């Protein structure tokens, strides 16, 4: 089962594939360090540029960005108390007080080492768990695949937390977008309104760039942020000197990595939840919990290990079942589709070199974090905080246009992307979750195709959808995902009422 994993290694060590990971990590740290920009946005902007690239080069860039951005978010968290990414909120609790007492450099080194350890653990989890799970999913037929898609959509809506009505609305919107274009069986036009450009459907890339890249750009321009922190003097020692001091965090690293991996696998959770849970657990187990929140480096270690440990593990359900664990994983699924790689059971059979190579790239990305984000680089990356945000916003707008225009060489796609961007901005502000839209677009067509195939096999008999045990289990899991949070909420309300 794991021989294919070893076979993929030499390919990843090729110059272009390895260089892609290095560039991705650096770009990820830069993006993560800029408050308001996220890994999701960076990968969305990147995806259209990867069209002409070898799939492994493209995926290496994405893996590097994901790893780099998760650490990069710690830089403004520590220096400015502004989390660079949502997952870095918990890092501010102790990172910023450390910076205030002149230990900002050490805080960033703890962050980079912990991020790297979390990322390595997560990559190993992906390597160990995804191949056997993919073997199981290979046994699935059309009706099971249909239920997997329904389960995936429901889990991301109901486990995401927040308002389930808004989650369902987002998912319905995504699925509706997936049906635009020619009908896959009859060829009849569906919602093309006479535009030939819509006959092939709406490219996932157009939706991704619109939903995930435009709203942060508007946010960059909406709120003027002044960064007047002196980031030139962090008091950074070489990392090899500070490393022995960090070894006392080993228990926190282990615990936080386990929490991060688990949260990553759960659909709908994410880096911020992993970081908060891990921070709380580490504080609970600490001998001096009163020092936490006042500059305890172990707090930075807990948060950063967990938020990086959920990166590769979020891809376990994404690669094997087509259900992403996080928003970034959803965007990465889009990246895979761009290269003709359909996430799900067949991915491991049809493209083992690419999928296993991708896993190695995650591991190398995590290891490279220490080398690239280490002592010298930490100072340089911290200076990024002084880049003017309006200029950055303008450059991203240009990149978005180039990327989307390059897909088919037509302005129609650009206008469509801007339309999705406006919808995405409103959804973001009104707290409609965005991942269900992407998942709806990915799984909508997939679910419809398999539903129709199953009905053809069953000669129009709908009971074929419930005919075997796997389908029945998936239906029960879907119901559990829907009913579970409702029951949980009722219990919480009862507990609160009892006082």
């Amino acid at each position, binding site marked *: 089962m794991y021989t294919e994993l070893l076979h993929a290694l030499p390919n990843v060590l090729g110059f272009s594939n390895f260089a892609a990971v290095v560039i991705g990590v650096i770009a990820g740290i830069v993006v993560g360090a800029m408050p308001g920009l996220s890994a999701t946005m960076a990968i969305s902007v990147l995806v259209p540029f990867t069209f002409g690239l070898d799939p492994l080069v493209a995926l290496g860039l994405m893996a590097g960005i994901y790893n780099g951005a998760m650490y990069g978010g710690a830089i403004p968290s520590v220096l400015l108390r502004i989390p660079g990414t949502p997952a870095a909120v918990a890092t501010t609790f102790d990172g910023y007080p450390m910076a205030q007492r002149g230990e900002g450099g050490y805080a960033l080194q703890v962050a980079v080492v912990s991020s790297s350890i979390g990322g390595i653990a997560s990559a190993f989890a992906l390597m160990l768990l995804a191949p056997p799970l993919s073997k199981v999913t290979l046994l699935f037929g059309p009706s099971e695949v249909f239920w997997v898609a329904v389960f995936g959509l429901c889990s991301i809506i109901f486990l995401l937390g927040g308002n389930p009505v808004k989650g369902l609305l987002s998912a*319905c*919107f995504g699925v509706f977008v997936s*049906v635009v274009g020619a009908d896959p069986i009859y060829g009849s036009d569906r*919602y093309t309104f006479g535009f030939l450009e819509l006959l092939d459907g709406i490219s996932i890339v157009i939706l991704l760039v619109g939903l995930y890249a435009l709203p942060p750009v508007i946010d960059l321009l909406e709120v003027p942020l002044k960064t007047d922190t002196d980031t030139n003097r962090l008091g950074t020692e070489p990392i090899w000197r500070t490393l022995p001091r960090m070894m006392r965090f080993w228990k926190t690293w282990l615990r936080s990595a386990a929490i991060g991996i688990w949260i990553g696998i759960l659909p709908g959770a994410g880096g911020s939840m992993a970081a908060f849970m891990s921070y709380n657990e580490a504080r609970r187990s600490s001998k001096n919990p009163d020092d936490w929140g006042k500059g305890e480096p172990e707090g930075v270690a807990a948060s950063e290990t967990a938020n990086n440990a959920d990166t590769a593990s979020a891809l376990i359900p994404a690669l094997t079942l087509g259900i992403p664990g996080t928003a970034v994983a959803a965007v990465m699924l889009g990246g895979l589709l761009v290269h003709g790689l359909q996430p799900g059971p067949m991915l491991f059979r049809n493209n083992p070199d690419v999928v296993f190579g991708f896993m190695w790239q995650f591991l190398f990305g995590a290891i490279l974090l220490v080398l690239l984000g280490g002592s010298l680089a930490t100072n340089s990356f911290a200076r990024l905080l002084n880049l003017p945000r*309006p200029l950055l916003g303008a450059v991203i*707008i*240009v990149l978005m246009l180039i990327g989307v225009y390059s897909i088919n060489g037509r302005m129609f796609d650009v206008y469509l992307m801007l339309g999705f961007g406006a919808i995405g901005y409103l959804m973001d*502000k*009104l707290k409609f979750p965005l991942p269900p839209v992407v998942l709806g677009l990915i799984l*909508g067509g997939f679910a419809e195709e398999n539903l129709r195939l199953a009905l053809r096999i069953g000669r129009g008999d709908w009971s074929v959808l419930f005919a075997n045990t796997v389908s029945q289990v998936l239906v029960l899991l879907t119901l559990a995902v829907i009913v579970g949070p409702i029951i949980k909420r009722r219990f919480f309300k009862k507990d609160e009422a009892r006082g």
Partner: protein
Amino acid sequence: MSASDKNRLYRPETLTALGIIVVAAGLLVPTAALQPISALLPAAMLIGLIGLSVALLVRDQRKAGAGDIPEQVTTAPKRVLLAFLLIFGYALCVDFIGFYVSTAAVVPLVAYVFGYRNPLGLAIATVIVLVSIYTIFDLGMSREFPVGRLWKN
């Protein structure tokens, strides 16, 4: 209709729900012309959108009835509107005037309007952006960008 009743209708979630209902109902009409199996998923989604929007509307109006004050969509509506106008304007300019001319104008314009006003910095940044794009995409990847519909004829 009293002023408070009007205010209740202008709540962001209420307006969103109403908007979704109108658009989804309008989009339901073309499904009648499709084969039943072809119309199944789009019709289900549109009906779902309408039903869920009604639920959102009712809940938001109940909140309004209980005196809840809705969250503001944006803290700086003028800046947001301006940002959208500039971005949409940029896309139109690229389409009609051409990519390089529009980009040379828009990068410094957006940065200047939103607060970065160092002329030397703006000039250097614009040149770097244009030269990088030309080198990477035009020379390196042979990508062609719009030359502008106005100059085509």
